[in-house]
């Protein structure tokens, strides 16, 4: 899923000093699961903003809404009246949701309340970790199901750098596992250590963001 984190309150409030009517819109999908932008977080942010703005913008009116999937226009249609009535939309969705709102309501100011961080999964309560970089050409078959592009700090494809120690990455030994230690352990476990001897050629990055913004068209599904 998409994992996000709320922006610092001061940064959000800085954009709202002259706003009379604010609409905060949460999203009940990924960002609700990672406790960043669901219904509860919308309520918490609304209260926090009232407090933060009580000196500089005490008359601000805040409306709270939450939709199922902010990244799809049909789920946002219920917001039409609320959007029309507000000056600014503060989206608590991921960057996709924020842009969907901006595209769907082109005359309205839309601000993000979250920092969209990565595609990952929960490891334990309150902890999420990156797993996929969306490179557009999955290589997990070669690396025992551990992605060196998303999980090695240098996205190395031919083994660990010299900074792997005790299973940890030198970039942040407290928080980052060395992806190549994980790859090595996993390939050993599934009897595929011979894969480590193959030289992985330079990656074709054209399927990733480096090839420009991406779009998928399924001719069989297009109406």
């Amino acid at each position, binding site marked *: 899923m998409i994992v996000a984190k709320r922006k610092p309150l001061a940064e959000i409030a800085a954009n709202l000093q002259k706003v009379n009517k604010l609409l905060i819109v949460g999203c009940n999908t990924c960002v609700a699961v990672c406790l960043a932008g669901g219904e509860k977080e919308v309520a918490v942010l609304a209260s926090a903003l009232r407090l933060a703005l009580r000196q500089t913008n005490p008359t601000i009116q805040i409306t709270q809404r939450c939709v199922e999937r902010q990244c799809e226009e049909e789920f946002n249609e219920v917001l039409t009246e609320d959007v029309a009535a507000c000056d600014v939309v503060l989206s608590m969705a991921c960057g996709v949701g924020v842009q969907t709102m901006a595209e769907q309501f082109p005359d309205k100011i839309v601000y993000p309340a979250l920092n969209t961080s990565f595609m990952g999964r929960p490891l334990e309560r309150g902890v999420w970790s990156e797993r996929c970089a969306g490179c557009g050409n999955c290589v997990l078959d070669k690396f025992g199901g551990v992605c060196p592009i998303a999980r090695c700090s240098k996205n190395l494809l031919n083994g*660990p750098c010299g900074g792997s120690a005790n299973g940890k990455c030198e970039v942040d030994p407290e928080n980052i596992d060395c992806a190549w230690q994980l790859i090595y352990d996993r390939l050993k476990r599934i009897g595929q250590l011979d894969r480590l001897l193959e030289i992985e050629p330079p990656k074709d990055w054209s399927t990733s963001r480096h090839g420009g913004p991406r779009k998928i068209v399924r001719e069989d599904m297009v109406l």
Partner: protein
Amino acid sequence: MKSGSKLERILASGHFAVTAELGPPKGPNLEVVERKMQLLTGVCDAINVTDNQTAIVRLSSVATCAILAQRGLEPVMQMTCRDRNRLAIQADVFGAVALGVRNLLCLTGDHQCFGNHPTAKNVYDLDSIQLIRMIARMRDEGRTEGGEEVDGAVPLFIGGAANPFGDPFEMRVIRLAKKVAAGVDFIQTQCIFDMARFKEWMKRVVDQGLHEKVYILAGIMPLKSAGAARYINSNVAGIYVPEPLVKRMAAAGRGKAAQAEGMKLAAETIQEVREIEGVRGVHIMAVEWEEAIRPIVEMAGLLPRPVVE
């Protein structure tokens, strides 16, 4: 001969090679380069010029190497994958060759979080093994990574790094084997303090016959003090100074006395690695302490340096 570089000729003729490292200044101050060149002249066979080492911006490796080459010194240009994509690397390699560089050390490069621009975007379009293979193809097949013909020869002696002290240990010989398969000619290892582990790694290297396919230069770093050793242990992943060495440095005291002990220890390390099968030379990394190199090489009995045809 693959490149005809002086370093290749030294190694091919069976001499125990000595290379040393020159860190360029944090700006275009040629006086620093001049001073370091003087310190290294006549004490080593080739001089590695670092490439924004530890991700700190410095006078470029290409430019510094060109200056060395103009003075008749033998540069080993270090090239990392951190700051350049495959286009920039190839262009800079062409430039370096055109300016007289004949040795290239292919590195992945320290992560930018350790340097003075931690908010920078890194590149890592290639890794060091892919870089080695790209350069070997440019030299041996006259082709760029993209497959086009290279206009002119690329006579480079291709180097790589190896860290016998990183984890997983089993991967360390595999990595070396991959570098050999990719076309590496010589290896400069990470600084050796943990001699037992280095010997174990070399034993595995020799068991696989890799020492006959690649020249291995053992990495030597003189310690300035016990504090420097402790700093390495707590801040540099993948290098470890065993406690007895830290104690030996501490017992030597401070300042000049500690420095003298550090140089002595480095010379002893050189003598010890020289006895290990498969070690064909040493690479001395005296970070911002190039003054130490001459006395170390002298104490190790490796002066004068040989002259090759």
